[in-house]
């Protein structure tokens, strides 16, 4: 979507929207991360993918499905709810607690790959590391994200990144997935268009 010149000169009242990844792009990116996981983990042996709700959960399931298509290995998939470990729990109304589901073999001694949609401040990942600590003792922990938008507030980085999107703090990144929202898409909602 092109910005009309009038909107550019007026103050950014009306948010601009830009599609960064369309449906086919999202699929290609997931495929690439699946390949990277296979490459970096020597065939994804003893590996468990844990999705961070909401959208990390379907992403983890997709990655596991792609990995088993590419190399015929079954990786464990689970969900890690981090609600009770958040550092902003007290700043908002009460949050609903979701389920944590670990794959049958558990995570002790496994290579755990946390999966989330957007990596931003890093606080969600910190909460996930705390939550992980209480449910088991993995051999190692890695992080896979669909989008890295920068602005880290903690010393955390991703091992697998689908797309780096340089953003300003006024902008926001929204990931939608077929499983949760009906369509695969990554959008950037603007503050002021640059």
């Amino acid at each position, binding site marked *: 979507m092109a910005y009309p010149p009038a909107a550019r000169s007026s103050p950014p009242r009306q948010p601009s929207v830009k599609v960064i990844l369309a449906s086919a792009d999202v699929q290609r990116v997931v495929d690439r991360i699946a390949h990277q996981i296979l490459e970096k983990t020597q065939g994804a042996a003893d590996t468990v993918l844990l999705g961070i709700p909401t959208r990390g959960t379907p992403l983890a399931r997709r990655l596991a499905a792609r990995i088993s298509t590419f190399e015929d290995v079954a990786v464990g998939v689970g969900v890690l709810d981090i609600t009770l470990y958040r550092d902003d729990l007290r*700043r908002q*109304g009460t949050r609903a607690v979701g389920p*944590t589901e670990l794959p049958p073999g558990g995570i002790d001694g496994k290579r755990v790959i946390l999966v989330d949609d957007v990596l931003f401040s890093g606080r969600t990942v910190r909460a996930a590391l705390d939550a992980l600590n209480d449910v*088991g003792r993995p051999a190692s922990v890695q992080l896979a994200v669909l989008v890295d938008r920068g602005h880290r507030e903690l010393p955390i980085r991703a091992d697998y990144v689908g797309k780096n999107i340089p953003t300003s703090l006024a902008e926001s990144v929204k990931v939608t997935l077929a499983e949760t929202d009906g369509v695969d898409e990554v959008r950037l909602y603007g503050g002021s268009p640059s």
Partner: protein
Amino acid sequence: MIKHLLSGADLDADTATEILDTAAEMATVAGREIKKLPALRGRTVVNLFYEDSTRTRISFEAAAKRLSADVINFSAKGSSVTKGESLKDTALTLQAMGADAVVVRHPASGAPHRLANWVDGSVVNAGDGTHEHPTQALLDAYTMRARLGRLAGLSVAVVGDVLHSRVARSNVLLLSTLGAKVTLVGPPTLIPVDIAGALAPAIDVSYDLDSVLPGVDVVMMLRVQRERMNDSYFPSAREYARRYGLDGPRMRRLPEHAIVMHPGPMNRGMEITPEVADSPRSTIVEQVTNGVSVRMAVLYLLLGGNNR
């Protein structure tokens, strides 16, 4: 979310379901090696118990500790209450010490309601006189849902000393909200005359246990509360047990799937025989386990956010 939990009537169907769903997640913590969550770190929960209690106090204490809250236990025995301190002054003392939540049990009906006006924190009613015990109703509802898969449409018989039972009152209110059908059963002297209309519109009253049993999904036996009985409500304990006690033959008249509940402590041989209490249909031990999860959910939903 509500600020206090004083009555089963404080909860609408959505809030009650939210508590039960949250409790189901809290229950998974009990199966872990590390049975602790950081959600209430730095918060203080006071257990203010003016009446003797084993399971409720321990259950609230375990729940608060599993959520990493600091717990202060107060029992009237051995405190300044024996020197004549009033509930209000005790409450103000707790307030000054910075209690975020007060869990209160008191022999006087309505004491938690008064307390809620005096302190800034959340008040949870852990049993007041012959009035209400909402977390017991929640854990009973949780147990029914866990065993039978649903609450809406269940037929529940609450049997025994309804007159003195706060468990019965809270259960009638909560189960009616959640769509279960409640029948109160007991001798006429132990069922208040106007209770059906006063608590919830659609409850039944029966004085004959045997006619009720074949059609129920849940039988909840109430303790005969001798400490509250100043009059003779029935001729003898043996007669009560014969007419309203749940024994083996009566249990076998229940439908195949039906469960037997008791809030504890039991008078074995009075309202329930050991054969029934220790049978696979009995959920009495599960109720205690579920109590911790449900109280964790209540404390988290009252204290977890900034909704104060």
